[in-house]
């Protein structure tokens, strides 16, 4: 992880990068959305006030999963008709990054994966459709239309001009899951599994009134 620092083109405040691969970040002080160019940062937008949320995770939370330490450097907040969830962008010290989802405190960890074979076209994706990857059967459990509610911190791609997203969630009988992001062209595949809070060995979490961790 590099401790690279730049200056916010909007307010002049220092902008620290925890992750050298970041393409986009937000200024902590003026909430400008900043995109990295070759030389410096360019303001491309402004973050609206983040919706109220009660995730115990925040930017800077550290953890360790299966002996791989990670730090939370960014997040995307999605909202759909049944509520919302956070996708926390986590980076490991070897520079690789993944996503720690927190949907009403059900956690899962997933990584962008190069599809082992071409992803099914969206027309073929509906509930209970079955696809096979890596000798594992994945069944579509839901197709979710979500919209993008907010963004914070460092992200591996530009994510400031997105609005509506379509995700297909697939699961296996052994608990693994896959998410296909059909709002990208070509679609993106993320593969992962649910994780227990205790298995993430968090440090530096938020505090809740009346509760001890």
């Amino acid at each position, binding site marked *: 992880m590099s401790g690279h620092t730049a200056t916010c083109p909007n307010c002049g405040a220092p902008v620290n990068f925890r992750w050298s691969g970041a393409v986009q970040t937000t200024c902590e002080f003026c909430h400008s959305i900043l995109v990295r160019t070759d030389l410096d940062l360019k303001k491309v937008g402004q973050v609206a006030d983040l919706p109220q949320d*009660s995730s115990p995770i*925040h930017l800077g939370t550290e953890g360790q999963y299966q002996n791989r330490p990670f730090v939370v450097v960014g997040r995307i907040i999605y909202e759909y008709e049944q509520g919302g969830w956070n996708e926390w962008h986590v980076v490991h010290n070897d520079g690789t990054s993944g996503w720690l989802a927190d949907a*009403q405190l059900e956690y899962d960890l997933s990584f962008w994966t190069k599809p082992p074979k071409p992803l099914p076209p969206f027309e073929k994706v509906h509930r209970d459709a079955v696809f096979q990857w890596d000798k594992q059967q994945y069944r579509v459990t839901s197709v979710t239309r979500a919209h993008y509610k907010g963004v914070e911190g460092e992200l591996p791609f530009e994510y400031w001009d997105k609005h509506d997203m379509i995700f297909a969630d697939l*699961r296996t*009988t*052994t608990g693994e899951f896959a998410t296909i992001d059909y709002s990208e062209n070509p679609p993106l595949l993320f593969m992962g599994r649910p994780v227990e809070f205790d298995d993430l060995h968090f440090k*530096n979490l938020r505090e809740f009134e009346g509760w001890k*961790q």
Partner: protein
Amino acid sequence: MSSLAVSPPVVKAKSLSCPNCGGPVELRGFAHTLSVVCPSCHSILDASTPTLTLVQRVQEAQRIQPMIPLGSRGKLENTVYEVIGFQIRDIVGEPGEGWSEYLLFNPYKGFRYISEYRNHWNFIRVLAALPEPTKSRGKYAIRMLGQTYTHFDHADAVTSSVLGEFPWRVKVGEMAQVDDYVSPPYMLSSEATPGEVVWSLGEYYTCAQIWRAFQLPDRVPRASGVFANQPSPYAGRTASAWRLWLWLMIALFGITLVMGFTSTNKEVFRHSYSFTPGAAGEPSFVTDPFDLQGRPDNIQLEINTNLNNNWAYFNFALINQDSGHGYDFGREVSYYYGTDSDGSWSEGKSRDSVILPNVSPGRYYLRVEPEMDATATPMQYELVVRRGVPVWIWIWLAALLLLIPPIFIKIRSTAFESKRWRESDYPPSSSSSRGGD
């Protein structure tokens, strides 16, 4: 590097007021709460917006009183949870049949549930894996994360009352199709609503465990009947009882071998005689003396006769030559056979044997007095005395007695399982009534 890891402020519980009655409404589930029931007027309110909005005004038929009050905290599986929501789910078409559900919350670990039916409890969490349909002992079953659960029952559930807050949009009158699958102490449940099927896994808890976890002050109530996933007190004990029985049988076999090898089983006397009924003179006589040696031990007297459709009675006395002390006993030998309309038949034997236990060593003789019908044909017979014969009857008796505990446990275990399944959609055929407790 962590200079910019500014910790966000402590998340605080929120207090709002009810748009219907103006009463105070506290949110214990922070921003997770989407629905909350006003504790004063029982209106269901939408909590997803900064101020509460009315969703459903509830005609409250009766004051519901959850056994665990809202706001109680309890420790389950090493985590402290707070009860933030409560709902009663009734079974459609079965009035009075229904269960309670408590929503538990911990701001780090998330949401869990506990359910209660007739003082039987389950601690429940939602599962994310895919179920695999299968069969178990002829019944429909589900395999999930390496474990097979047998289908127990199906119910159409309707939410009849709600209290507290929920991270989803609750409504009184909401319907769901619920299926339970069991593998005690676990229960897998699926809840289907239009557009969604949620799978969850419950583990059986007793009232005492729940009372201890939440430190409830009242007396622990008693559960009635056997619940779907209540662990059987006999589970595993049947197998271990049979295992113990097998070991004891092996031990018994060992004893038998030892007895067989250590028994002296020595012939100490053998002599042939004849007896003519109705003959003049005294029928009784004494045999030659014989020696019984070693420790006190049994003797066996064997009587071999040539009786043929006839009977004889023998009065015996085994007399110690030195002390004059005797053991008196009598034996009847009879042997009949023939043919009738059912074919050939026979009754009795022409030989007999008897064991006298614990005879002290010494020099003994037998006094013998045969008796027969005065008109019967004369009888030839032989008397044989053996010292220290192994007695197998005790071994058989022991084997039989040892069978009692495993059979007893098996019967109790079967009775427990039949009580369990009587409440299911698959009542055992022997029981005539359903849910008759």
